[in-house]
């Protein structure tokens, strides 16, 4: 999901930076004192998750975990993911510095979307809440793949082709992340529901 340096055209990079900046501002504004530590830990999880690889045919893809980050953080997913991406860029060489904005939007955008799509279903009974959690984990990866296609459509390859390829490559990741998200939600519902959306803090 990390788009490398030198692939994107100028306007796409600028647009990505603008959107990522706005998202981060909203996220920081909404971030209250009690959730700073939680944001940091999820940011660290996201940072490390990219090293967990799932072999897919000749290539391999890595976990993203933007679903659970978005579900638990809402808009604060933007600063969390931005920080993690900066560090992945510097330390791992994933993505790039100019493409930071675009990559942030690619991964944090779906996170926020899924937060609002599924967040309200989390406090419901287990069949519904677990399905919602699975959907949140899987769809946030799916949307990220669509976003990658959108970002690349302006530069080189055709949208359907790219998005299709990214979605196909990430199908196992979607399933795995759906399961991880459902597992996390089930666990947190039992022990600390206040971390989840829809519960009184």
């Amino acid at each position, binding site marked *: 999901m*990390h*788009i*490398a340096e*030198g*692939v*994107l055209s100028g306007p796409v990079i600028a647009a990505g930076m603008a959107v990522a900046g706005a998202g981060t501002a909203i996220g920081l504004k909404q*971030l*209250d*004192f009690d959730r*700073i*530590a939680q*944001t*940091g*830990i999820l*940011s*660290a*999880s996201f*940072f*490390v*998750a*990219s*090293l*967990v*690889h799932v*072999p897919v045919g*000749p*290539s*391999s*893809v*890595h*976990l993203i975990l933007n679903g659970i980050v978005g579900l638990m953080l809402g808009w604060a997913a933007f600063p969390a993911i931005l*920080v*993690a991406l900066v*560090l*992945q860029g510097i*330390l*791992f*060489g*994933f993505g790039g510095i100019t493409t930071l904005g675009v990559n942030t939007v690619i991964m944090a955008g779906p996170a926020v979307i899924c937060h609002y799509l599924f967040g309200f279903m989390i406090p419901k009974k287990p069949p519904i809440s677990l399905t919602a959690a699975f959907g949140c984990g899987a769809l946030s990866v799916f949307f990220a793949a669509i976003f*990658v296609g959108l*970002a*690349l459509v302006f530069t080189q*390859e055709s949208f359907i082709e*790219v998005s299709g*390829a*990214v979605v196909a*490559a990430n199908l196992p990741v979607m399933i795995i992340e759906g399961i*991880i998200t459902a597992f*996390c939600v089930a*666990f*947190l519902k*039992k*022990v*600390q529901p206040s*971390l989840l959306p829809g519960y009184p*803090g």
Partner: protein
Amino acid sequence: MQIIPKFICHRAAARFLIIIAVMLTPLPANAHRITVFAWVEGSTAHVESKFSAGKGVNEGKVTVTAPDGTILVTGKTDKSGAFSFEIPRRTELTVTVSAGLGHQGEWTIRPEEISETDGTADPTAIIERSEPLLPATSASEEIPMPEPGPSPGLSRTEIRQIIEAAMEREWERRLEGKLDEKLAPLMRFLAQQEMKGPTVQDIFAGIGYIFGLVGVAAYVASRRRKPAQERPEGPKGHKGPEVPEVPEVPEGLKEEEEFGA
């Protein structure tokens, strides 16, 4: 909520984090960053490209561009991510390997790395030029010329200078060839090093940075929060009943122990 469940909650949350950490333990695999490394051997440039920590870029699109943006060479890498091409001319060459879907990497070959003879199609051109005067091969055998013979228009010293220059060039060429040969394994080794994936240090450095940022954020937020703290506690945050003081060890017991000792 009571005190005990709250206590368990914290432990459970900690366990949850440990589970996440275990799930996220990095596995040896590959993806996502493409590293490209290219070196020159004679008139050929070798390119190696890999995803971070291992696998070669299978059928990656290779483009070699000059500084002015003209595309000089295009091609595809083999299964191990390797590609070789004849150097078209002596200039800065930017080798880009793209695996599609926004993944690509590049490496630049500087003109200094390409030896002068490599850019030309025929490395024997120099020798040919000197041939009308004296064959370079025989010239390298005998440096002191016993009898130069009659040479119209050229003095002895001039001939000697020409021969020496030709020999020097020949030497340089051979030395370069030899050096390239010897250095190739070293370059390959360097390429491998260059392509190492993230290390444990990188991972911990990143996590450390994030925790540090959390600290900074908490500090900033706590400063912002101070005036607000003066107002009475709102309904937010459940407060259990007061924790009863842990009863101290009865005096009698203490004394008994002292007596025992």
